[in-house]
């Protein structure tokens, strides 16, 4: 009996001794090697995040390797896409101007005019246009300014320009966005794509070859400009509001993405608008009148918007107004 008890006791002691010799593994310590974790997150594109005791919860991100990709985008991709888009478009327009020349009204203006855009349409157009020019220049300055303008004017003057550019960029986004809404409401009715637009494109819009395709109030080319302005401008404005209120609605990854969307669409829009500005002024005789006085020459209108002229003439018995 005593021997049995002793044996039991020994067995128990053995068990406890065994338990004591096997402490909790220290493997947790080795799992979070700084180098391993950093490499892993860099390869995965993830972040190293933890808990923080200060109110700014953004600061809980210890390391965000995605900054490297954003840097590559900003310094290389954007600079190349923006540079090629803007300079390339200017070069194309120059080639077009020197080969095709100014598109003139055949046989010269008639002297008779017809109202194309009323005062509200023109005022809104110029509000959007003037905002866009300042927004575009101050935006381009953030990407190209330090390579082009900074060496010319020096750091102090360049900072002053960029600082005011930033204020202008922030504040003018509001009239720009408002103008887009008004523009949409004013012109969407006449900008719904239809079958005639296909014919217009097939005939090269009258830019290439002879003869002007029939068009309503807005031809297919103008409809493209309209939708680039509304959709492109809308997306640029929306992504811009994420940037203007930093971290209000998104995190660091969202801010980087907003910047990428904003800047890429913006440089493409600038290229598109350069073409719009060219054809609305230097590139075509009589086109600027539509947006300055609002009164266009009837001959010009018949060439470019034949169906619209017919409709307008039909509306009033007097037809076109004599000047």
């Amino acid at each position, binding site marked *: 009996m005593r021997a049995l008890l002793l044996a039991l006791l020994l067995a128990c002691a053995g068990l406890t001794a065994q338990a004591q010799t096997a402490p909790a593994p220290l493997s947790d310590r*080795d799992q979070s090697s700084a180098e391993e974790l950093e490499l892993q997150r860099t390869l995965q594109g993830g972040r190293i995040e933890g808990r923080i005791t*200060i109110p700014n919860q953004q600061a809980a991100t*210890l390391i*965000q390797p995605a900054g490297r990709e*954003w840097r590559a985008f900003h310094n290389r991709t954007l600079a190349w896409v923006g540079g090629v888009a803007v300079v390339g478009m200017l070069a194309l327009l120059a080639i077009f101007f020197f080969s095709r020349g100014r598109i003139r009204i055949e046989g010269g203006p008639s002297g008779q005019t017809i109202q194309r855009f009323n005062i509200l349409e023109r005022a809104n157009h110029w509000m959007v246009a003037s905002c866009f020019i300042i927004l575009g220049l101050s935006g381009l*300055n953030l990407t190209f300014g*330090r390579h082009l303008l900074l060496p010319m004017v020096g750091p102090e003057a360049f*900072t002053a320009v960029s600082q005011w550019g930033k204020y202008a960029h922030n504040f003018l986004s509001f009239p720009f966005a408002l103008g887009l809404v008004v523009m949409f409401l004013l012109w969407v009715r006449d900008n719904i794509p239809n079958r005639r637009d296909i014919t217009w494109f097939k005939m090269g819009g009258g830019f290439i070859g002879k003869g002007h395709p029939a068009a309503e109030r807005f031809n297919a080319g103008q409809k493209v400009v309209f939708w680039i302005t509304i959709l492109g401008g809308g997306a640029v404005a929306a992504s811009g509001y994420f940037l203007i209120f930093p971290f209000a609605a998104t995190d660091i990854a969202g801010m980087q993405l907003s910047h990428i969307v904003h800047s890429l669409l913006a440089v493409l829009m600038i290229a598109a608008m350069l073409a719009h500005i060219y054809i609305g002024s230097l590139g075509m005789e009589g086109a600027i009148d539509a947006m300055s006085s609002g009164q266009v020459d009837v001959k010009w209108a018949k060439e470019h918007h034949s169906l619209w002229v017919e409709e307008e003439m039909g509306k009033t018995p007097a037809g076109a107004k004599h000047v």
Partner: protein
Amino acid sequence: MARMKFLLDSDRCIECNACVTACKNEHEVPWGINRRRVVTLNDGRPGERSISMACMHCTDAPCAAVCPVSCFYTTADAIVLHDKDLCIGCGYCFYACPFGAPQYPRVGNFGSRGKMDKCTYCAGGPQADNSPAEYTQYGANRIAEGKLPLCAEMCSTKALLAGDGDMIAQIYRERVQRRGYGAGAWGWRTAYRETVAV
């Protein structure tokens, strides 16, 4: 010249936040701005560890690379500093920084940022050393006085080391050899593209 770096030994950091407090006090950093912070990973779980993080004064610093007004410069000790008189507060350096170091005082309308503020490695800025103008803009310049950053100097467990990269790496290496373990140097791979081989 020395190549100044920070090294955080997370096996020693006890999350006391004294480095954060010392930094704020030494430079009279405004409310809402944290040049240094302590992040705790795996909080309350096995493998919990705390890391004190500030600007790492990177090699080929991303902030300097993306700055639209080129306001950053690197000192002879490889400390990354910036000129607040040139900064326009665009926020690009924050998007590029892997460590979330740049801070912006909130001024004016919307989320309009003021001029960026970050850890100066206690080396001030482009103004004359230890002038009142330098102190107002950037805080104390301990480097000009021959002292190291205060956060590391006063760290009670010496978890945070500051100084020449080779020297602090050697101190860390000896520690790891003596105690038999070490999580490694946090942020070194990202900031300096090297690790502390033990």
